[in-house]
């Protein structure tokens, strides 16, 4: 009888929504946090904490203030920055993760690709963050603005500057 009741009970819309968010964003979120922290263990802790905070605070999510993804990334960003402060360590250009060769479909233009990788490695933390949000997480400029606490146009302008830097490195190659 109890099983029947459970079987007939309607699914919790918040829980299913969170599950969908988790499935959609987990990988991108980890990549973003890892980009900020440059420390795999710390990034794992922060991602776990961010998902837990989002899970416990999902009833407080206000769709009018942005998408669920942007909200989740903002939570993770705060946790990551707190982690950075706690460790009294500044996000610096540490050792980059080795690039997965299979990730790039086309291995043409190896010189340009190398130049771009080098330029990516030399970006400062804020610029790296924009690259992660735009190209790892595929966020719109409005979503990026929500995450980093800036306006959409400001986020777009800053992103253009980063891409210009990368273009310049590509052209110089």
């Amino acid at each position: 009888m109890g099983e029947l009741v459970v079987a007939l009970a309607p699914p919790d819309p918040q829980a299913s929504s969170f599950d969908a968010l988790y499935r959609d964003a987990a990988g991108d979120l980890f990549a973003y946090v890892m980009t900020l922290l440059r420390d795999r263990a710390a990034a794992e802790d922060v991602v776990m904490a961010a998902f837990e905070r989002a899970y416990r605070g999902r009833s407080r999510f206000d769709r009018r203030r942005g998408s669920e993804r942007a909200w989740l990334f903002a939570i993770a960003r705060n946790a990551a920055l707190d982690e950075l402060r706690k460790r009294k360590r500044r996000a610096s250009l540490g050792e980059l993760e080795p690039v997965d060769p299979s990730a790039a479909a086309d291995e043409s233009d190896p010189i340009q690709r190398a130049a771009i990788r080098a330029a990516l490695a030399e970006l400062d933390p804020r610029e790296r963050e924009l690259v992660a949000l735009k190209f790892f997480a595929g966020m719109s400029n409005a979503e990026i603005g929500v995450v980093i606490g800036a306006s959409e146009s400001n986020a777009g302008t800053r992103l253009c500057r980063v891409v210009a830097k990368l273009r310049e490195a590509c052209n110089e190659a």
Partner: protein
Amino acid sequence: MRHENTDRELRAIEAAGAGDRSDPELALIVEEARASAPRMSPAFAQRLDDAVAEGFVRPSAPRRRPRLSLLPAFGLAGATAAAVAVAIAVIGGSGGSKQSDLLPQHSADVGAAARAPKAASGGAASAESLVAPTVAAPAVHRVQERAAQLTLTTPGARLQDTADKVVGVADRMGGYVQSSNVDARGHAGEATFDLRIPASRLNEALAALSRLGHVRGRSEQAQDITASYDSASARVREAEAERTGLLRALAGASTTSEIDSLKARLRIVRARLASARNALATVRHRANYSRVEVTLLGDGKAGVVPPHGGGGSWTPGRALHDALHVLSVAAGVLIVAAAGSVPLAVLALLGLLIGRAVRRRRREAALV
């Protein structure tokens, strides 16, 4: 121009992100950027999956719910304490009606002390007493002087009538009016009375006076004057003894000069005796008659004062009146508290905003 370039570049970035390769350079950048994205380890991915599936259960994590659930209880307790404090302040401060409930015991004690000598002395008063003695032998009983002050409000139109009743009460109790001043001006007049009421009937008189209007204030004092009484009595006895001795000596005197001398001393002693008796009478009067100062205030809002006013019994009507008074004062306290809390709330809000800004600035500083 620059704005247009930025927009064009942003559109190109969006297109490249969506897989468009019309800008090969940008497509290359997007590919390399994506290729550099760190990936979760399978172990962490599994751990995260499990945590999400279990709903982030943390059995050892202390829950703060119980503390939150106590908030209403604390609020209720605080509100009750505040209400009790307000009620005590209002009832206690509204004057004599409640105070009179507390006073009788004290008054009875004082009255008993004053009445006791009367019973003890009875008709065995000294022949030299100028007033009816109600004070007993000094060594046995304490002698007290009692006084009371009473402030009443009454409708201004009834001020004169009430003033007459005050005099009537004094007469009925066997006392008298030492002085009075009645100033009836429209609805806001004032009358003051300095009454002398037999100490043995002070409580009765105060009760009668309290029924004449709404009691705004009432107080009583008792002062021990046993020492003054004993001293005055001793001086009388000494003077009497000396006079008796002189009279005897005078009866036995034989020479003119001796008689003249005794008569001169006798005149002096008689004067001293008269003075001592006057002093004793004054002390006795202070013990036998209590001073009652009555202030009668005309209340312009005649309807406010209940017709049954006074400081007598605490009737349901008075209880209702007091309850409304308590509520109105409590409302006033709340309004004042709200007014006071507005700047505090503004400060708290400012503090919150500043705190957020500082925290955000510190967070951002970590990403430099």
